[in-house]
């Protein structure tokens, strides 16, 4: 066994670190560290910086503008970027739609949409979930009826992340209701400026505007915007989910979060001694550290396997479960370490929150509440367990 990176991988890691040190704007990193919302402008700036290096479309093949990385390079980038407080790469166009078009799209679709994702012309959002179709995605009801050269779309999507900024939405729609729920679904690309689309914000638990409802009323979509075959969109959706599964453990986020909790507990005094010297708090922190240490190696084991067989195994669902648990535990410890001042609402002190907390701690409670989402989205942890039951336990 050899747990270290190869010399080439180590050189790559050094290159990534140098790139982040040179190119990641300090003001953006500071906002990410503070745990607040990342603005559209910040995301677009960061995307452009990555694209100028050729590192934006990390899962795409080189012929379409990807960097030609394997799973290990992607993991190294994720880990280093998270530790440097880089904003996350917005996944919808780059990590979801791009690979789908490359695999299932027509030549015309690839030629039109892929360059526009890369240069930031189109901001994409995802139209999957509906009020009645969450974990049970195949029960979706948004209807698309063929009318000449167009589809007429009626229905509602929800939990549409950053849909308020989006130029386009990729949707799963029902084109046939007669067979099994998985049959009769199609994958459709819809221009958000089309008449009949209305976006309404959903305010989340911590007060932020991250997700939306999207309503479709007689929205006319050119038939050429269908990806793959009519009524076989479920095949496309399943492929996309396997792409969502890479980098799922969030190891880099947790390493950064662990260091922050440790630093905070070292400068916080509780009952006459530093919080880090409190045996109860330290024991809680140590148990998370151990889980994180184990997960680092578990993640590398899965990467080595993905490299060997060419795709991530179903076992990575275990990483999603444990990875989200660890991140949530660290959010919890951070919030608790701040004590009562953690309660300040971001922007909640009219005279400025600096009177209550330093800027980097201001988002602690908001992050804790906001990150309850990570065990829910992308297939809730319970759905991951169902997937594992079927594929790994064969029960």
């Amino acid at each position, binding site marked *: 066994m050899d747990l270290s990176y190869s010399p080439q991988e180590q050189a790559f890691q050094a290159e990534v670190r140098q790139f982040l040190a040179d190119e990641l704007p300090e003001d953006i990193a500071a906002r990410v560290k503070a745990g607040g919302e990342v603005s559209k402008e910040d995301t677009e700036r960061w995307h452009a910086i990555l694209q100028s290096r050729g590192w934006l479309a990390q899962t795409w093949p080189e012929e379409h503008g990807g960097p030609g990385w394997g799973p290990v390079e992607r993991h190294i980038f994720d880990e280093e970027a998270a530790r440097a407080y880089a904003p996350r790469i917005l996944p919808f166009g780059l990590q979801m739609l791009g690979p789908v078009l490359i695999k299932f799209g027509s030549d015309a679709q690839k030629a039109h949409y892929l360059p526009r994702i890369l240069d930031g012309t189109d901001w994409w959002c995802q139209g999957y979930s509906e009020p009645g179709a969450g974990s049970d995605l195949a029960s979706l009801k948004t209807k698309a009826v063929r009318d000449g050269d167009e589809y007429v779309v009626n229905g509602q999507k929800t939990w549409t992340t950053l849909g308020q900024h989006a130029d386009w939405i990729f949707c799963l729609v029902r084109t046939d209701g007669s067979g099994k729920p998985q049959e009769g679904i199609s994958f459709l690309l819809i221009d958000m400026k089309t008449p009949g689309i209305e976006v309404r914000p959903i305010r989340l638990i911590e007060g932020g505007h991250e997700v939306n409802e999207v309503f479709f009323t007689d929205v006319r979509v050119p038939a050429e915007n269908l990806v793959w075959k009519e009524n076989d969109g479920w095949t496309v959706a399943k492929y996309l989910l396997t792409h969502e599964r890479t980098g799922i453990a969030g190891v880099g986020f947790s390493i950064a979060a662990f260091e922050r909790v440790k630093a905070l507990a070292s400068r916080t005094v509780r009952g006459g001694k530093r919080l880090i010297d409190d045996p109860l708090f330290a024991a809680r922190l140590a148990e998370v550290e151990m889980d994180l240490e184990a997960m680092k190696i*578990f993640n590398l084991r899965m990467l080595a396997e993905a490299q060997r067989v060419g795709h991530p195994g179903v076992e990575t669902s275990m990483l999603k479960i444990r990875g989200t648990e660890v991140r949530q535990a660290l959010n919890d410890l951070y919030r608790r370490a701040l004590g009562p001042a953690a309660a300040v609402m971001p922007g909640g002190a009219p005279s400025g929150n600096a009177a209550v907390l330093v800027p980097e701690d201001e988002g602690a409670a908001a992050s804790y509440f906001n990150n309850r989402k990570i065990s829910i989205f992308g297939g809730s942890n319970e759905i991951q367990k169902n997937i594992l*039951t079927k594929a790994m336990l064969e029960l």
Partner: protein
Amino acid sequence: MNFEMTDDRRMLADSLSKLLGDRYGIEHRTSVAYDPPFHDIEGWKSLAELGILYAFVSEDSGGMGGGGFDLLAVFEQLGAALCPEPLLGAAMAAPLLAEAGEELEPLLSGEAIYALAVDEPEAPWDAEGGATEGGDTLTGRKTAVYGGNAATHFLVSARREGKLALYEVKAEDAAVTPWGMIDGGGAAELMLDGTAARCLLPDAGPAIERALDGGRLALCAEAVGAMDWCYATTLNYLKSRKQFGREIGKFQALQHRMVEMKTAIEQARSITIAAADRMDWRSVAMAKSLVGRVARKVSEESIQLHGGIGMTWEYPLSHYAKRLVMLDAQLGDADFHTARVTATYA
């Protein structure tokens, strides 16, 4: 990055697995593990003939291993077979004898059986805290000496001129009270009262800690092997046992608990690999703590998922379940090692 075992270790593990399968079928294991002398001396000899003990020291010392991954290869198999032989003592004693420049062949050939005596009734898991006094002879008491039931030689920690020293005591020179353990295999109480002893290392503190860390890693690997066995056995049971007209594995409440068990086992395996790779005390402490917690969870969950049958002496799972709980108490339990980890935060 590569998580495959080397060919040499793979071959060692495979031949060990085969031997254990042949010699330590669960019925035989149960029949030898709970009655004096709490192990099978003929089995011990065949393990020694296979050369297993040579995995515990490097080639420089006449062995063929000595690394963390050698311990992993051997103890994972021992755990999977629930082997009651006193190999842990040999694994800890071998590097200590090597450090002292002692002749290793008797240990490596299996002719001599060594046990490491560190724990004391008032100071378990704490070599530095022991009260045993050493001079030309030894006086004190050592408790829960694993493999002491079978040992021909003891390596004993004792205070000598303000330092922690390591002595060798022959079993025939000491008052040894062997006892059987609830999870099978044996240990002993060692009463020392002006007992003849030979000082091997006058300043042995760091060497003893390294040996204990090797033992802790070995226990983690043993747990991983035993947990894999429990997981596979429980999964089989869920697929065959029927209630309410269907296999109980069709019930989601049980399915999710199985997934949680498997996830925990993979975490335990991962942190054990990390410890074997690094072999520093902190990595080992993290592994021993996490594995201790996971092992107890796997034990309790395996019993619960089986229902009543998992509680019976006759059903092999019960013996694995006991081993998984009790090995946490060996060489420092989860809380002990968590506390050591937190000490580094200060």
